[in-house]
């Protein structure tokens, strides 16, 4: 990051290679489609570029990067909601699951989709990025206690979901 601030020409490629896969995973698990996740990734990198002077050498890079990603995701969500408020919804087109997705991935995604947004984000940051609770608190502009509480509630909910056997599709569901 320091080399990037000093305009080392090799720094952008090294940073992008290192940080983009977990960032893409973060956006993808946060219920975005692959295209949306890639758009959000590009938007995040543009912001990282514009805000690179605000990284203080010696500080941890991951919370700084994910704080920006967190805001990009929230801004995008608000933008989408504003646009959706002015549009008439057509019948939703289901997004086909990628054939390369392993079964575990699909199960994890469906479990995450059942969590409230704030809890989902905390679990994904803890899981997909390997950040500590303190780092997640910094990235989400929250307190350590609030992050622990969200994670605890999310794990309780996930436990409930995992203990409930999948409901067979009834005729009522089909209607």
């Amino acid at each position, binding site marked *: 990051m320091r080399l990037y601030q000093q305009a080392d020409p090799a720094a952008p490629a090294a940073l992008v290679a290192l940080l983009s896969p977990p960032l893409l995973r973060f956006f993808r698990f946060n219920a975005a489609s692959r295209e949306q996740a890639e758009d959000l990734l590009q938007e995040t990198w543009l912001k990282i570029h514009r805000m690179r002077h605000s990284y203080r050498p010696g500080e941890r890079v991951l919370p700084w990067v994910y704080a920006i990603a967190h805001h990009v995701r929230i801004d995008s969500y608000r933008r989408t909601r504003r646009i959706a408020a002015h549009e008439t919804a057509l019948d939703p087109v289901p997004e086909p699951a990628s054939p390369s997705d392993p079964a575990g991935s699909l199960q*994890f995604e469906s479990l995450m989709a059942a969590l409230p947004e704030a809890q989902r984000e905390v679990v994904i940051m803890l899981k997909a990025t390997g950040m500590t609770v303190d780092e997640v608190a910094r990235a989400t502009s929250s307190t350590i206690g609030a992050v622990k509480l969200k994670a605890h509630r999310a794990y309780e909910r996930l436990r409930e979901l995992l203990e409930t056997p999948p409901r067979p599709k009834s005729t009522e569901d089909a209607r």
Partner: protein
Amino acid sequence: VTCREFNLLLAEHGPASLPADARAHAASCAACARLLSALGAAEDPAPLDPALAAGIAGRLATGLQPVRPLPPAGYFAAAFVLLFAALAAVIGFGLGDHALVKMTPQAAAETFAPLGSAAILLALALSAAMAPAAPQHTPPLRLAATILLVLAFVFVAAFPVHAEPAFWLRAWRCLRIALAAGALSSLLIWLIARRGAILAPSSAGALAGLLGGLTGTTALQIHCPNFNGAHILAGHWAAALAGAAIGWLTGRIAARRAPA
């Protein structure tokens, strides 16, 4: 370790670095093992397209210029406090320290100690808001609301409320001065704050507006010799409230107009 304690340990350490006793519990408990396995699944649902990564890196490298890292947050906090104190003193003493000379030492301490403390807390919070991922002890809007409420309580407790003739006219005269001082102070504070990278303009705007408004309030506490608690609330404290509201609104509009 019980299942509940397992959840707490999971929330505390994350799935990747669970302590040994929690892992041992998961080995003997089917429900916890299922939860851990679900969290461990799905390593990479969306592998990164190498062309996309190369495109991003190429765009970032084009015309890359060196940048100077932001100075430590403490420098900015000190600058905000100095600006607050200097402007409040220049405006207050410039208008005439009629209130200060009439105040008892106890009333002066009860007035200026909370105002100074509030300014320090706001300066620290605003300097933290200038860089992503700076530690925050209290959410900015909660801090602003608490400061406003505590100051209102302090003013009413320190200065008795009584009826007075031409109340609104006198309050408006003071409020105009406080608002003008607040606008000048907020503008200067914002010129410093914008050197950072503000991710949440509405809450940063509220902090800057409140700190600016408090400059006006403090200047009037030095100048205005009307010690009616109701006058202080309507003519002095209201400038801080208005500053916070205008700052929040300005930040919100700026965030909405920001390019995607």
